[in-house]
């Protein structure tokens, strides 16, 4: 039962943290609860579909379908996170200024909420399909141990939900003025880690086989599949033995997002002071 709890918890950490960060990043935006719930629901539905068709998916693209699929949805999430950060950099200030203009708020909020709901959906889909396969596997074996294992898995899911709560309420203790900066930073690192992971999936599928040599190995210090390793893997993209291509993707994503944010922010400050409707 404990082993099932740990396996499921390890799988849902990523989705749990992402939900927490998204909730904190959208503080004050109406309908965000609905958007996150839609993301989770859609992700779960997708996870069941992926689990049911795991075999068919794997056979696509000369046996590299699973890798390509994982890389594609990770890159989609990277794009959505980038969009959110850039959009917030250009409009966030007005949003804060006109927080009381409710009508305006709904419009600005909904735009980027869609992107973040997709990010949540992708996170739930990716990890969820493995949880579904794992729990289905032990349930299919039957017997009392199976019941205990499924119960353990259920507790693992609850623990993942608590993770969201911890992340969310932890972030909310940050003063409102600094919260935007912190969540943008977290989202940038989240995106960089996902981009690096997408590169690994592409390489495992047989593509992008450049700079595959390991740069360093910190596996002796922190294993990537331990709970704390998994936490850091999600939050800052920790990899115990990164290769060159992974590092390039990681750094390029950070530089790209920061530059884009700077660009739109500057254009906004130097441009004519028009009030955005």
């Amino acid at each position, binding site marked *: 039962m404990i082993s099932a709890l740990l396996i499921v918890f390890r799988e849902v950490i990523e989705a749990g943290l992402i939900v927490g960060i998204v909730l904190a990043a959208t503080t004050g935006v109406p309908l965000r609860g609905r958007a996150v719930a839609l993301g989770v629901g859609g992700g779960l539905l997708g996870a069941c579909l992926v689990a049911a068709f795991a075999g068919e998916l794997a056979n696509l693209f000369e046996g590299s379908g699973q890798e390509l699929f994982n890389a594609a949805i990770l890159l989609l999430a990277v794009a959505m996170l980038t969009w959110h950060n850039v959009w917030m950099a250009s409009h966030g200030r007005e949003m804060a200024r006109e927080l009381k203009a409710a009508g305006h708020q709904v419009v600005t909020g909904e735009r980027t909420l869609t992107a973040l709901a997709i990010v949540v959906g992708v996170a739930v889909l990716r990890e969820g399909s493995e949880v579904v396969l794992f729990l289905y596997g032990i349930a299919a074996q039957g017997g009392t141990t199976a019941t205990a294992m499924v119960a353990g898995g259920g507790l693992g899911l609850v623990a993942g939900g608590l993770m969201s709560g911890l992340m969310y309420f932890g972030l909310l203790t940050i003063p409102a003025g600094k919260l935007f900066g912190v969540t943008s930073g977290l989202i940038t690192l989240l995106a960089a880690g996902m981009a690096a992971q997408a590169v690994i999936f592409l390489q495992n599928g047989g593509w992008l086989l450049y700079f595959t040599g390991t740069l360093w190995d910190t596996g002796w210090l922190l294993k990537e*599949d331990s709970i704390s390793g998994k936490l850091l893997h999600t939050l800052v993209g920790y990899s115990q033995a990164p290769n060159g291509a992974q590092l390039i993707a990681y750094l390029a994503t950070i530089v790209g997002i920061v530059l884009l944010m700077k660009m739109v922010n500057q254009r906004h400050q130097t441009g004519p002071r028009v009030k955005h409707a």
Partner: protein
Amino acid sequence: MKKLILALLFAVTPALAAEPIVVHLKGHKFYPSTIKVKANQPSMITLFNDDATADEFDSPSLKVEKVVGGHSKGNIRLRALPPGKYPFMGEFHASTAQGVVIAE
């Protein structure tokens, strides 16, 4: 930029190792559980999952996470590995499904 990425992705066809190494997963154990590969050159494992339910071939040191469904198979590409030992496991049954890749 997009074109360049697409070109990179698809002009480079998947690098195939000469002979895939066949590994079976049965009763949540790997046969063989010790897999020897040549160091510094890519190789491929074809994993046949003979069990009824799925498992995930998982190895942080090999950088592989691959779900293989029940009664199906999956190809696992290994990059050129420096000499050394690379443990792997079937994540859903980690108490029994353990193995190691030895590059030499």
